[in-house]
């Protein structure tokens, strides 16, 4: 799991790569979102393009990230989610709470104007 963070038009883009799973990937996701919040960001896009897989711990962190940002009046959205990951996120229905964009450009456009 590799995580890196960029800013585009006031939107924080977090690139996730690999497995968002218990012990490492979930922690990396949490740390990245927390760092963005601490930096004052209230609009975070998680770019899933290179995510290979996700387990329930990764999903729990996804939910926690959403809630933490929501409490602050901000937004966490997802983009470029591969079909296999979408399937799992649909199964547990956690995907229903997020805005999900087909690609990063659309996500940034929607969130920077919003």
């Amino acid at each position: 799991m590799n995580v890196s963070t960029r800013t585009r038009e006031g939107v924080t883009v977090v690139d996730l790569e690999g497995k968002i799973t218990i012990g490492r990937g979930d922690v990396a996701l949490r740390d990245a979102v927390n760092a963005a919040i601490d930096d004052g960001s209230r609009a975070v896009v998680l770019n899933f393009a290179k995510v290979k897989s996700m387990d329930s711990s990764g999903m729990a962190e996804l939910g926690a990230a959403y809630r933490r940002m929501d409490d602050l009046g901000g937004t966490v959205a997802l983009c470029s989610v591969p079909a296999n990951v979408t399937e799992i996120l649909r199964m547990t229905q956690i995907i229903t709470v997020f805005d999900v964009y087909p690609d990063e450009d659309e996500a940034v456009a929607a969130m920077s104007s919003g």
Partner: protein
Amino acid sequence: MRKVHLSLASEYDNIDLVDSVTEACLRFAGFDETLTEHMTLAIREAAANAIKHGNRQQPEKIAEVVFEIDDETITVHIRDQGEGFEVEEVPDPLAPENILKGAGRGIFLMRQLMDEVSFAFDGGTHVTMRKERPVAGDQDEAGEEE
């Protein structure tokens, strides 16, 4: 008779070994990529629970994963040395108030992704999962490709 038995110290990093060995067994058994991915997730969830909730990450406690690959079925046992739990009390992860929380999602995924999942308690939690193998014609080919 084909049995693959993993015995692992209760450390999260060892779940990567569970993943790899699971994929090896499932490809041999002729499962396609999607089924392999789904079943690997179900097995990972049970192994993670054994390490986290059962053995509480105490490395001297052993988590075990056993694959029994018969001609028609693959059976997977996941065992820990923990205190067990009440399966009936696990919350429903699809209840609206739980969608954003963690609890219950692992067991829910196991049930969604495998044909059969059962829990027993004998000096620890013992999860048993079953899935039918794809029909014989495909199996041999996939086994050989490996």
